[in-house]
């Protein structure tokens, strides 16, 4: 029954799209479309949450799509969890857009696609046959693409849209082939049939690779991430947040659905592939992010990093599952899915913050910001909460899920395979490295944008953002704290998913004293975010109270000290590039072949000295540039076909016909 209700919700969202087209000229359109989207996504979220908790699997079949197949939809535990993520993100984005969307210059380019995009993501998660899945998947790509190029006068956005469209089509092609293999020669496109038939080892391996490529290109795993940092920042902010926070999770859903559910029992080496990709993605994502000074692009690269962390968890779950260590697999899978939820919350929050800054100053470049904490104190506060959460610092939620992932890594010496014995510690080191680098990156992002002194007049005159945007950000910030201090609730909510995919769950958490989480046994490890939070708040307050009462509470304002040489020019502050310089020197020289080129004018010349930094994107150069070059050359060669005479065309047509007939005959 739940599936039917959820489909009604999707229908309402789809109906909103033509309404938005009709209303587009009216100034009320923004409020109506986003308001309706907010209500529908909230209801969808409630339906999903009820299905997750009560866990009845509900199905629905519509007479659409392929005539002999129909469109099958189903909400099981896994789908319900991802529906919660999708609709929570959707509701937050809609609430945010109620305020933010009013500043949109051309709302008619965004409004019709926005509810359709939400509907598409809902449909992907609910789809129960390959045909509906792929149609919904492609619909999701196209509606988001339309919003990426909403501001099409900016040539960068058009290029981003082009690269995105290419990569999305490529990903869908891989998924199409994968589902084709899963369906077998009989064409069993319904997921239930795929689940029942176990493909041979070679075929399963091929499907795994196609799933890694197909879902991975949408999720943004390295090296298929190239489109993500171009496309995500180009869209309007609420859509950026949805693409980064939610759509990448829908891609993770696709991967989990195929690999954990449809493909049957895993081989041990599958986990090697997923773990390797996860580790590299995590570190490369954060290193790319550190080199950015565009706030939204930095956040997009962090999505790449977090997808890596999620894939590490999924890889561990696959490894444990392959060797029959079901309880450990349940822990790793729960960690990965908990991180899915957490990332969708804090990444949406951070994008909203970046959007508010963009609105207030017209700037995405951090080098033109600074001092915003004075002008936008509330945005600064919630953005800071997001920064702490994504940097995996206690007591917020990012730490809770990474802590679980570390606990899963510590169980892996039990794996018998030698390949995994060497790979898992290395992946653990990469995970630790990415967590530390993420903290560095968010010190940069927050410090350069919000702290210090304003670098431009626009930043100096920024105004606090509107109430709707703030409300959306406060809700997400509160969720970061709740998921951080009460992770047990979320672990328990994920139990049905683990039960369905692994056949085992983590120990029940909510009955434990003081709401501690104990993933395996109390003698092994436990963590209590609530108590840590209370301790830190208490000891900080006690210290503040004692010092103010017993010692001194006086305060004077004076010019900055700066070792006696304060310079009033804001240009003397550290910029994003100068902040990242030590890290660029340590890591960038190998990863990006980073070079600093200093130009000193000759003595006596009054020309300014210049320092330019040269970074190379080696992945682009090694993978994408050759393919683009090859396509360029091939199309040049084929170009002659465009200018043939009519006789030659007729000859070609005849030859093709003969060839086809020959093929048929043989």
């Amino acid at each position, binding site marked *: 029954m739940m599936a039917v209700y959820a489909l009604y919700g999707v229908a309402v969202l789809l109906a909103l799209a033509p309404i938005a087209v009709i209303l587009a000229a009216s100034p009320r359109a923004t409020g109506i479309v986003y308001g309706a989207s907010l209500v529908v996504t909230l209801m969808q979220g409630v339906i999903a949450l009820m299905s997750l908790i009560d866990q009845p699997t509900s199905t629905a079949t519509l007479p659409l799509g392929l005539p002999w197949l129909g469109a099958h939809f189903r909400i099981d535990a896994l789908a319900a969890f991802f529906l919660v993520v999708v609709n929570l993100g959707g509701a937050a984005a809609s609430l945010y857009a109620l305020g933010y969307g009013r500043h949109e210059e051309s709302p008619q380019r965004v409004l019709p696609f926005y509810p359709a995009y939400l509907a598409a993501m809902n449909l992907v998660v609910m789809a129960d046959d390959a045909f509906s899945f792929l149609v919904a998947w492609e619909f999701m790509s196209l509606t988001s693409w339309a919003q990426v190029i909403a501001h099409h006068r900016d040539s960068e956005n058009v290029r981003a849209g082009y690269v995105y469209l290419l990569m999305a089509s490529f990903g869908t092609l891989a998924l199409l082939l994968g589902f084709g293999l899963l369906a077998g020669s009989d064409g069993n496109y319904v997921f239930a049939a795929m689940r029942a038939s176990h493909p041979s080892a070679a075929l399963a391996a091929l499907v795994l690779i196609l799933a890694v490529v197909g879902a991975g290109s949408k999720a943004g795993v390295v090296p298929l991430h190239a489109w993500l940092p171009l496309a995500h920042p180009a869209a309007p902010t609420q859509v950026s947040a949805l693409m980064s926070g939610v759509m990448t999770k829908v891609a993770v859903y696709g991967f989990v659905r195929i690999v954990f559910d449809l493909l049957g029992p895993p081989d041990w080496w599958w986990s090697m592939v997923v773990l390797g990709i996860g580790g590299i993605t995590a570190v490369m994502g954060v290193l790319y992010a550190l080199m950015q000074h565009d706030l939204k692009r930095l956040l997009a690269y962090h999505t790449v990093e977090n997808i890596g962390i999620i894939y590490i968890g999924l890889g561990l779950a696959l490894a444990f599952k392959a060797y029959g260590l079901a309880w450990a697999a349940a822990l790793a899978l729960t960690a990965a899915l908990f991180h899915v939820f957490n990332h969708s919350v804090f990444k949406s929050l951070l994008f909203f913050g970046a959007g508010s800054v963009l609105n207030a100053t017209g700037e995405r470049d951090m080098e033109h910001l600074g001092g915003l904490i004075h002008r936008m104190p509330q945005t600064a506060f919630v953005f800071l909460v997001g920064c702490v959460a994504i940097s995996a610092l206690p007591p917020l939620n990012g730490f809770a899920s990474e802590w679980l992932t570390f606990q899963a890594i510590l169980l892996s010496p039990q794996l018998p395979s030698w390949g995994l014995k060497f790979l898992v510690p290395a992946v653990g*080191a990469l995970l630790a490295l990415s*967590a530390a680098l993420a903290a560095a990156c968010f010190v940069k992002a927050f410090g350069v944008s919000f702290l210090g002194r304003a670098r431009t007049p626009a930043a100096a005159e920024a105004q606090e953002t509107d109430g709707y945007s703030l409300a959306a950000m406060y809700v997400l910030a509160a969720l970061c704290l709740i998921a951080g201090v009460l992770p047990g609730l979320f672990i328990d909510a994920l139990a049905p998913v683990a039960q369905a995919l692994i056949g085992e769950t983590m120990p029940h958490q909510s009955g434990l004293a003081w709401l501690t989480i104990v993933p395996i046994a109390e003698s092994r490890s436990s963590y209590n975010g609530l108590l840590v939070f209370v301790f830190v708040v208490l000891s900080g307050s006690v210290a503040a109270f004692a010092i103010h009462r017993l010692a001194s509470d006086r305060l004077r304002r004076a010019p900055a000290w*700066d070792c006696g040489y304060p310079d009033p020019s804001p240009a003397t502050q550290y910029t994003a590039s100068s902040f990242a310089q030590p890290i660029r020197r*340590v890591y960038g020289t190998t990863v990006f072949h980073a070079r600093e080129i200093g130009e000193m004018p000759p003595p006596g010349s009054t020309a300014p000295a210049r320092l330019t930094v040269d970074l190379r994107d080696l992945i682009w150069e090694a993978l994408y540039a050759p393919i683009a070059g090859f396509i360029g050359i091939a199309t040049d060669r084929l170009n002659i076909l465009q200018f043939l005479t009519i006789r030659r065309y007729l000859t070609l047509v005849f030859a093709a016909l003969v060839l086809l007939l020959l093929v048929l005959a043989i």
Partner: protein
Amino acid sequence: MSFVRDYAFQGAQMLLVLLLSPLLTGFVRKVKARLLRRQGPPLLQPYRDLIRLMRKDVVLAESASWLFRVIPYLVFAGTWVAASLVPTFRGGLLFSWSADLIAIIALIGSARFFLALAGLDVGTSFGGIGSSREVMIASLAEPAMLMIVFTLALVAGSTQLSIIAAYMLSSQVGLRVSLGLALLALVMVAIAENTRIPIDNPATHLELTMVHEVMVLEYSGRHLALIDLSSELKLLLYVSLIGCLFTPWGIAGPDAGPAAIAIGVASYVGKLAAGATLLAVFETAIAKMRVFRVPAFLGAALMLGLLATLLLFVSGSL
């Protein structure tokens, strides 16, 4: 009854680390001065400094934000809570299960995150240089520390500090290559984390080579007192950590009598003194390295930690 006793011991531990930490710093300074044939400041000088600073007015930069005023309390609270969770003289702390070793490391990481933000808040070039170097050092020190935690957790089968310490005290441990590597790496990380020579020089000011001191340059009065106290707590935390992990002798059990507690306190003070002396000797004997040599130093620590973990993955008995 035992519940009350547990609370009392947890409270005692919190006070003990708070009260002992300035003394530890004073002791290191004294030993260093004596090694240089100087008289050195009195042992209790750090306490006097703290009290003096707390009584002074705060002189706040005009461009400082509210965050700048909150950060000293956050940093202090995070470090204090972390230090209170490391077993010192008595194992089985009441709240030790609320944060395992990974969480303790992450708490220290939170404190550093905020301190680095404070460096950027006023908008001066000195603060920026400190913060950017601090996060570069942390980006290597933290993974190295986590690798050490992995090693210990794999040896003891737990990430709970009390349980690791109890395991280290038992006869099951024996001599292990991995623990040797982990100890070496931990010492290197501890030196870097506490910004000691050869990474940084806590005694200098106005020098472009330093990290921590420029980051907190704009702080004054009670804020500076709290930051100094946090640094002292952090030094104590690392010495206690090395003490309880690698020299766990003397730590009283959860149900020890007064005599065992007395031995525990005495041995803890002895360990602190030994650690401080070793640190002073090491710092006196070695020169500070250039900032861009630090990654090699910490990279070595990271590799040692990774090697120790790998050894344990290959064979549980190494």
